[in-house]
């Protein structure tokens, strides 16, 4: 009994020092100067722009990666494909690549001296140091989430329900819409939550390709580091708090859609 209490105390203390206390303190710190400055730094044009850009990127990336993820999951689970193991490794690859490297490789492809850099520049499109580059970087880092969440669910539900629908006369698109999709919907939602959180929160990859032009290519995460370095702590903490609130909502949704057996 005594050792059990000791172990519990050690585990909780570790979590408190690493997790709970720091996150709690960020809220306190943001509001240390009262509500006024927080409201001001929330509503200055640059802050609004940063929020808008962050959301804009997420709105482009999340649907594309969701459709990709569902398609890939069905391919992986329901189809006979040569090289499935390789494909599975490729889907996981973004988890293994440092965000800075992601940004760097995009510069190698789309930058001024990159493979396709002059191709796009000649046609008047700027990829790097501009929104398209940030979108590509975000797509890369958040690519695996939906597929990774849907694959196990698809395996779990098996093929019997789909076969039953087929014997009852349902065409394959009807089976997909009426049977498969409802059965995997919580897996999809969970994957979408993770994709959205990662899209909004990505920093390193976006930092490399953004050029960090305030009011143009500054996302919320970039704003946090930039304003902190500029010693505008209220602005940095306000942006951080916005992101932290999004993170807490994400956490809430994660727990909502991913009921674990241990509770």
């Amino acid at each position, binding site marked *: 009994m005594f050792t*059990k209490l000791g*172990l*519990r105390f050690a*585990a*909780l203390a*570790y*979590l408190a020092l*690493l*997790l709970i206390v*720091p996150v709690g303190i*960020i809220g306190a*710190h943001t509001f240390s100067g009262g509500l006024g400055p927080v409201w001001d730094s929330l509503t200055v044009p640059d802050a609004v722009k940063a929020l808008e850009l962050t959301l804009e990127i997420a709105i482009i990336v999340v649907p594309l990666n969701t459709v*990709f993820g569902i398609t*890939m999951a*069905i*391919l992986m689970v329901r*189809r006979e494909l040569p090289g499935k193991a390789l494909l599975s*490794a*490729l889907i996981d*690859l973004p*988890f293994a*690549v*440092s*965000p*800075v*490297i992601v940004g*760097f*490789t*995009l510069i*190698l*492809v789309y930058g001024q001296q990159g493979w396709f850099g002059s191709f796009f520049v000649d046609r008047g499109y700027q990829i790097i140091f501009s929104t398209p580059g940030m979108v590509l970087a975000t797509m*890369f880092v958040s*690519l695996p989430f939906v597929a990774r969440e849907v694959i196990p669910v698809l395996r779990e539900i098996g093929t019997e329900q*789909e076969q039953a629908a087929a014997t009852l006369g349902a065409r*394959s698109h009807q*089976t*997909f819409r009426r049977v*498969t999709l409802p059965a995997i919907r919580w897996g999809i939602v969970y994957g979408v939550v*993770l994709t959205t*959180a990662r899209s909004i*929160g*990505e*920093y*390193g990859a976006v*930092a490399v390709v953004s050029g960090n032009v305030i009011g143009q290519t500054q996302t*919320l*995460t970039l704003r*946090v*580091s930039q304003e902190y370095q500029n010693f505008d702590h209220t602005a940095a*903490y306000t942006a*951080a708090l916005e*992101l*932290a609130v999004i*993170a807490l909502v994400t*956490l809430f949704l*994660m*727990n909502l859609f991913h009921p*674990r057996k*241990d*509770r």
Partner: protein
Amino acid sequence: MTTVALPRRRASGAALPSAAPGVAITYLSVIVLLPLAALLWQSQKGGADAFWQAVSSPDAAAALELTLGAALLVALNNAVFGTLIAWMIVRDSFPGKGIVNSLIDLPFALPTVVAGLTLLTLYGPYSPIGLNITYTRTAVVLALLFETLPFVIRSVQPVLLELDREMEEAAASLGARGHVVFRRIVLPNLLPAILSGMALAFARAVGEYGSVVMLSGNVPFSTEVASVHIYSQIQSDYVTGATAMSIVLLAISLAVLLSISALHRRSSKHVH
């Protein structure tokens, strides 16, 4: 009976438009493979000498050493505390356990730069408890500990949950004490999960950028990690240096991920 080779239909599968596989694989190629191919192509451009020179330059070597050392330390630390926390969540019960369990995922949900700022607030120059660790290697380790906290826990938790309690009861009935049961029965069963969680944590730590860049001060030869090193090479347009270090980091992460999947294959054979 004539056996005419009729086109035999495949068993009915889930619906996908016929173009879907092609489109999905093209998407994967453009978003993920194309950039990585550019990196590989860039790495061989300068030849082996330039590559070797870039990774063995004193500042690069120092950054790499720090990164690998810190990642290893963090992975080991996670093995101990991650297992302990997973144990607490699965086997212990106390008020507020549900909340603690959900908070574990916070590092996954919180943007790295916010995590960095958070740690900076508590353990930085304006620390309310007077503890300033910026510009020290402790800062690097602390940032990595925060970011990698969930890996071992989330990998051990389901295994511990499924672990047959009767095995432990059988060992106890044969006279084994608590710590013997843990060492001889529980630990061997958790080991694959602990290792796989450690490997994931290690791979993540090797590439981590946002939290470290905020907290560590990024002093070359002292607190500059590999990803920050790459970033500063990019900023100073030293493409060869950035490329070489990227290749090394990528190779390490890939090796780790491949060993995880090998581990999974082995342990799943063991179970069935």
